[in-house]
């Protein structure tokens, strides 16, 4: 019996006695081995040790003293721990979708066939390679209430701008706004994703009478969902670790309105000399991020479309 064309195509391709799948697996392990080496050599040990430290009272200067789960119990009763978690959650809830949407918007613009495209791409990517501290210093002046760029601009329209980072009500929104500055990374990834969308599909949709908007919603966006998933996971992890803005610009104030989780962790470790407590906070953050990542990954089966499926 002659196999059908479909059956032929499903047969594993063999090269030098190995299936394509085996070759891919081998390539995967080759590519990931530097990371595995780095993880085993430099990360795993400190991670395990920090787990132990989270069960101790340690001021960095004297040997750690084992205290069991006391740091975790204390955390539950620490109003600043809850405040830092609240600030970080609000920040992440606002900045993750906002920055992803903005990055996608820019990527779509940069995917157009216009003159000087590489210059635009470079300009829009450039901010994300600037050091976080330098960006924070610049934004201190953007948000300066009296002489700052933003309020001077608002004044042109007769609007009396708020105190931004000087105001408890506006400090966090200001930092959320500032988070858009660093969308260069996800923007480039979105751009790569957009260029992977087959023009044949768009053309076919066009022939079926779909306009640009419907093509975007029904063709581009579904084809882009693996990229969105990747950027979403990275953004969640990144935003929960926000530190520089609080460290450089606000010191967690005014009135703890920008007390980010990692900044409070840093304060506990190096200002209050509670390294055990800080280690416990790090583990709590690890589990929060892990749960959120797992949630996104599990839910992805419902909304992520892979081209090969």
């Amino acid at each position, binding site marked *: 019996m002659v196999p059908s064309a479909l059956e032929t195509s499903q047969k594993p391709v063999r090269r030098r006695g190995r299936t394509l799948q085996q070759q891919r697996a081998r390539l995967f*392990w*080759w590519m990931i*081995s*530097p990371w595995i*080496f*780095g993880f085993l*050599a430099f990360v795993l040990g400190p991670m395990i040790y920090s787990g132990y430290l989270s069960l101790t009272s340690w*001021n*960095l*200067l*004297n040997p750690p003293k084992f205290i069991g789960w006391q740091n975790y119990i204390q955390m539950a009763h620490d109003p600043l721990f809850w405040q830092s978690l609240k600030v970080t959650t609000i920040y992440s809830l606002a900045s993750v979708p906002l920055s992803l949407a903005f990055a996608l918007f820019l990527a779509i613009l940069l995917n157009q066939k216009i003159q000087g495209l590489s210059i635009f791409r470079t300009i829009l990517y450039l901010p994300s390679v600037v050091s976080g501290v330098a960006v924070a*210093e610049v934004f*201190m*002046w953007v*948000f*300066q*209430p*009296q002489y*700052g760029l933003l309020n001077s601009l608002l004044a042109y329209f007769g609007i009396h701008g708020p*105190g*931004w*980072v*000087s*105001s*408890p009500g506006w400090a966090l929104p200001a930092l959320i706004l500032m988070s858009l500055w660093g969308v260069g990374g996800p923007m480039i990834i979105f751009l790569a994703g957009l260029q992977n969308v087959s023009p044949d599909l768009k053309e076919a949709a066009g022939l079926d009478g779909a306009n640009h908007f419907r093509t975007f919603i029904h063709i581009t966006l579904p084809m882009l969902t693996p990229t969105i998933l990747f950027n979403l996971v990275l953004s969640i992890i990144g935003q929960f670790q926000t530190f520089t803005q609080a460290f450089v*610009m*606000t*010191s967690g*104030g*005014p*009135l*703890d309105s920008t007390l980010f989780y990692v900044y409070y962790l840093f304060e506990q470790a*190096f*200002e*209050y*000399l*509670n*390294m055990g407590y800080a280690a416990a906070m790090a583990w709590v953050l690890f589990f929060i991020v892990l749960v959120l990542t797992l949630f996104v990954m599990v839910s992805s089966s419902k909304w992520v479309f892979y081209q090969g499926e």
Partner: protein
Amino acid sequence: MKRNRSVRWAASGVAVGVAAGSLLLAMGAGFPTRSAASGPTIDLTLLTFDTGPGILEKPAVAEFMKLHPNIHVSLQTSSSTYYYTKLLTELATGNGPDVFLVGDTDVPTFVNSGVIENLTPLFNHHTDGLNASKYYSNVLNVGKLKGQIYYIPKDWSDEAVEYNVSMFQKAHLPLPKAGWTWAQFVKDAKALTIVKNGRTVQYGAQLPGTWLRAGLEQFEATFGAKMLSPNGKTVSGYLNSPKSIKAIEYYLNMYRVDHISPTPTQMAGYANVDLFETKKVAMEPTGPWGLSKYQKVPGFKFGVAPMPSLTPTSKPVTSIFWSGWAVNKHSAHLQAAEELAAFFASPWWENEDKAYAMDAQKGPWIAESVKQLPELSVYFKEERDVTPLIPTQTLNWTKDVNPTLTNLIEEAILKPKSSIPALVKAAVPQIDELLAQTYGG
């Protein structure tokens, strides 16, 4: 076949490991190393936050090594922002510097944790001029705990009011002088505050905001109040005493009622700009750090007056700002480390340091400094009157007291209608709870 593949996989892993290891070794090989045979026999490390790149410590280390050819000193510098992160991490990993600089607030932390050497015997037996009696006693005392000397003072300063002469003249106000009061300060500051179109374009003063040493602590002492019990274990009955509340109200009402100064959150928005130098404020109670810089600004006429007093007959109060050298108890070369620390008490150091700070020892240097910068004389007059440091009276001021008081100040200023006694009342149990945790109560 399967075994062969496993072997190949293992070999691949090893190859990657070896490659990465080689890379690390190659990177390491790029660092300069000194030959043990040809180099000095003792290696010491000195860590400082002073003057960023160690502008003064660099020649000091060179001079020390010239005097001690068998000792090599590696100088590490760090900006004050990252200094304690670096120092604590190094100490925690057993790689702490042999000699390091400590700021006044952290004096008890390193003593009580037992990581630094008691230097009293060194003061008693050092043959090369290290002598406690040469120091200003109030300056030496900052580094003393329970009668023992743990730090060699590097230098110090106190607080005075720097003022812009041109602004006073323009407002037809007499210049501030010794014997003036806080009431006069506020009156002048109000007259010097200029508001145009609802925006303050010139402030009468720049107050220290949440910087407790220069602000709240200073006012507590001015009003004869104490915010902490003598044993450092409670603020109850002290911070909320009538005198203390009066002091806090006086200080905060300069922001809330008189509006003579940019608020702490407004100051944060200025991102380290010196508002006195840029002529946005007329007066600033502060240390002498900016004087040599102001001297170089063309046409900038400024003066310095002693701190105001509460009444014309009472004495003014001024805070002390200080840093000192500590010797790591776990140094592998303790004697050499002590010798290095003692070098920072030598005439060579005092002579060089005079150009940058106020010398800790009595000697000809003060007269020479004042000759170069006459405005310094006001600062030097007040050494005997400096207020003892409150933070050194408790085990962990930075963790237990500082954050709550900082929040109290911020909240009182951001909510001008809030009741200060109520804010203080709420702060007291919060601080006491943290103090109890520290003292195991």
